């Protein structure tokens, strides 16, 4: 499996009225072709910032350093006109809240049509028929009349299906799904997840799934990257993360999960306060909440190391014990 | 239970005081608002100390120095009677501020009362008041004021009454909307349950909570009243000669536009600065009162 997207030493700062927010602090991450990589972490840990940085959709007060290499090209250095050909065409994106991510004043087909026109997508039939066909693929009943509907006439789940269909129209190599089910009912969540799995199988789309829901991760991810306060603390195959979590943060995450069955339990506040990123703790950002922290953890940032094949951890304690 | 209610009511009052303080802190951060506040303070000081600040009496005629351009003797030049325009423009601030104060006092009293009644009691009272508000609010203010001046006759006092009878509608609108939401809050509910009268609830519970919106409206109402009043004076239906009113001055100055352009310029700049000052403060106050709207 080749690497489709490689993030190298990424830093993102936001200039705000209260000071500089160091939202992403030296993230390195690989997404392999055809896999589902889940990026998991608490709200505010910077996982959505990474997805927007890949698409270069961060607000103007953000400064980005590092490299984001997609199929050999550093996206951060592409001219805007080239970047537009990547957005939507090469990399699709689905957002958290389907209720607000479709434009309320245009019909579904009008908004889907734009993909065909802008990216000059090949069509076998008329664009409208292609749209109806896509809506059928994402299992929207009565697709023809739904295509002519306005977003407000559709339920949340339906709208998220429309988003998926829209992003599928260009058959992108990479799909970034930023908390695609968080705003939906539990039953609808499962349906959307199944839909995405199905699409991955049928179209061989690589998926970068951003979520704070371990239940979702267990269901669909191949590998998991755990994020804490703007840093990646652990990357491992999904089974490893659940059965053999090594980073203290990942461990406390997993301990918070009820055992034996899939859960919808969210991560928020299970460990107390997330640090203030205006003045992040020096060294390992987790050390103030870590039961094993010593002076080494407050000194320098721990490097991320491969401690077992395919299992990477950024912690002095973990790497250290094995190397000593 | 009673104890709980009491503490609830007290909590609201305490919070309301610190809200004012927070509003001031947010207001202070807005530079334009502070500039506006500075302009207003200067104008108020000018109005109060006009006799000390002016080199001549506003009515003093220097018949040898008619229509003189600005000079060190006459800073803003002179008019067709040789009166010192600098002194007249400074005195004109008194009329402008008087208009602002009188109009606001009348409009706000009418509008706030009707708004409170409309929002608190609802029903057909609300219906009648709000339909009237709709018409008055969308009617061009100057024409409605003109129509009222037709009935009352020309003059500054009548012009002020006319403008006040036009300006109350926006108070009624906003206060009604706020009353509707405030009256659903727990501390009003609590006051009702301990048997407070409607009047007391309106005056001591609801009114303090709509006060900040009223304050914003007032800062916008003053400049618009000044503009309408100066327009009426310009048309000859407001302040009458020999008043140094800015609108009236410009009405005369117009005849000498080619010969003595400064005559028209200075009183107009005075109107503009006054209005600008209040508008800046209004914008700043609005953003400070409703911080979620800042963007």
């Amino acid at each position, binding site marked *: 499996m080749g690497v489709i997207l490689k993030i190298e030493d990424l830093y993102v700062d936001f200039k705000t009225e209260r000071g500089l927010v160091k939202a992403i602090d030296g993230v390195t991450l690989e997404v392999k072709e055809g896999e589902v990589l889940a990026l998991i972490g608490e709200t505010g840990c910077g996982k959505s910032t990474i997805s927007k940085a890949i*698409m270069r*959709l961060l607000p103007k007060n953000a400064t980005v350093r590092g490299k984001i290499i997609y199929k050999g090209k550093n996206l951060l250095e592409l001219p805007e006109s080239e970047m*537009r*050909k*990547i*957005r*939507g*065409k090469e990399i699709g994106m689905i*957002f958290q*809240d389907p209720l*607000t*991510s*479709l*434009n*309320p*004043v*245009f019909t579904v087909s009008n908004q889907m049509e*734009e*993909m065909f026109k*802008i*990216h000059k997508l090949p069509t076998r039939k008329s664009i409208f028929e292609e749209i109806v066909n896509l809506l059928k693929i994402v299992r929207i009943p009565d697709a023809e009349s739904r295509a002519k509907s*306005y977003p*407000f*006439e559709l339920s949340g789940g339906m709208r998220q299906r429309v988003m998926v269909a*829209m992003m599928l129209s260009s058959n992108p190599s990479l799909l970034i799904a930023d908390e695609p089910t968080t705003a939906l009912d539990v039953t609808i969540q499962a349906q959307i997840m199944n839909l995405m799995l199905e699409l991955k199988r049928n179209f061989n789309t690589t998926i970068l799934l951003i979520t704070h829901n371990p239940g979702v991760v267990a269901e669909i991810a191949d590998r998991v990257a755990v994020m804490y306060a703007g840093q990646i603390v652990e990357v491992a195959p999904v089974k490893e993360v659940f059965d053999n979590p090594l980073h203290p943060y990942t461990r406390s995450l997993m301990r918070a999960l009820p055992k034996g069955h899939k859960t919808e339990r969210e991560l928020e506040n299970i460990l107390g306060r997330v640090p203030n990123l205006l003045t992040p703790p020096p060294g390992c950002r987790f050390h103030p909440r870590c039961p094993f922290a010593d002076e080494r953890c407050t000194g320098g940032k721990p490097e991320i190391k491969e401690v077992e094949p395919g299992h990477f951890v950024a912690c002095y304690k973990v790497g250290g014990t094995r190397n000593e | 239970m009673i104890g709980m209610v009491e503490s609830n009511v007290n909590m609201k009052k305490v919070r309301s005081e610190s809200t004012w303080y927070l509003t001031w802190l947010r207001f202070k951060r807005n530079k334009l608002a502070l500039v506006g506040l500075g302009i207003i303070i200067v104008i108020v000081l000018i109005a109060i100390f006009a006799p000390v600040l002016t080199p001549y009496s506003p009515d003093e005629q220097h018949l040898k120095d008619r229509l003189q351009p600005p000079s060190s003797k006459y800073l803003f030049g002179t008019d067709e009677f040789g009166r010192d325009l600098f002194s007249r423009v400074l005195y004109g601030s008194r009329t402008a501020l008087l208009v602002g104060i009188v109009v606001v006092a009348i409009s706000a009293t009418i509008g706030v009362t009707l708004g409170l009644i409309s929002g608190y009691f609802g029903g057909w009272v609300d219906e009648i008041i709000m*339909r*009237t508000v*709709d*018409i008055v609010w*969308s*009617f*061009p*203010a*100057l*024409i409605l004021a*003109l*129509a009222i*001046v*037709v*009935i009352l006759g020309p003059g500054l006092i009548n012009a002020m009454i006319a403008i006040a009878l036009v300006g109350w509608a926006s108070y009624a609108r906003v206060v009604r909307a706020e009353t509707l939401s405030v009256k659903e809050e727990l501390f009003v509910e609590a006051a009702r349950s301990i048997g407070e009268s409607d009047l007391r609830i309106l005056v001591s519970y609801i009114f303090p909570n709509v006060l900040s919106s009223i304050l914003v409206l007032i800062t916008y109402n003053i400049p618009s009243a000044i*503009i309408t009043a*100066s*327009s009426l004076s*310009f048309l000859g*239906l407001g302040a009458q000669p020999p008043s140094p009113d800015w609108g009236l001055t*410009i*009405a005369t100055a*117009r005849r000498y*536009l*080619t010969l003595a*352009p400064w005559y*028209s*310029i200075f009183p*107009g700049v005075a*109107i*503009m600065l006054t209005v*600008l000052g209040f*508008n*800046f403060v209004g914008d700043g106050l609005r953003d400070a009162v409703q911080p979620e709207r800042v*963007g």
Partner: protein
Amino acid sequence: MKKQLIIRKFFSLLLPIFVVSVFSFSLLHLIPGDPARYILGDFATPQQLAQLRHQLGLDRPLYVQYISWMVKLAHGDFGTSLVANVPVSELIKGRLSFTLKLTGTAWILAWIFGISFGIISATKKHSLIDYGITTLAVFFMSMPYFWLGLMLMLIFGVKLGILPISGPGTWKNLILPAFTLGLPQIAVIARLTRANMLDVLEKDYITTAKAKGLPDTLVIYKHALRNAMIPLITYMFLQIPWLFGGAVVTETVFAWPGMGSLLITAIFQRDYPVVQAIVLIIGTLTVIANFLADITYTIIDPRIRAMG
């Protein structure tokens, strides 16, 4: 569904129009004392007074006067001017086209420039050009029409000598009055457009549009502008009566022979039938503008349209 709503709203027009008609009608009757003496002055003979009272119908009961006034209005009869001695409708007919030309031009200027400046300002937020536009806007909003008109006259007519400063004539005579009336409105619309655009540009569906790879022009002019315009649509209509209000002063400044300057002359000449007619016309226009604002709002926003 939709038709019913419009019909219901149409009937809600009648009450305000009734109020406006009663208000215009009462203009003459609310004058303290005897209107006839007030109009003719202290030196009028009893015969003259009696004749005027009869001409104005003052010798009949109020409600009869109102009904007969309304019946005449329904036939397009606005009464006779006391000064010019010609039907008021003819006086107004001669003036109306001038006022419409002035307000119409100002309206078009206001929207073309207002929206353009608003969009530029919003898309170049916090740039020099944004500060320039917003600062100028506040200044233009703080000037009374009559002074703005005089200053434009002074600069373009007197100093530069490139535009005629008063009276009707060619299209050149329209430029200064139209900008006098239009500039403050450009300022208002630019500010509203900027605020709404900034609001809309933060919305999730704009991120979606960008994530689809749409070029900025499509994101701004299609996805953002359409949504930003919805709250502005009401203003397109509400603004019309206000333009007529501003026209009164503007016409007086530029000696533009429209309805506004007619109103001022009529007020000074105590020509009540003319004053009543103009107040009634502008009042009705206000009510209709309100109605249209309401209707268009329902038509343009699919969400409200569906609720019917």
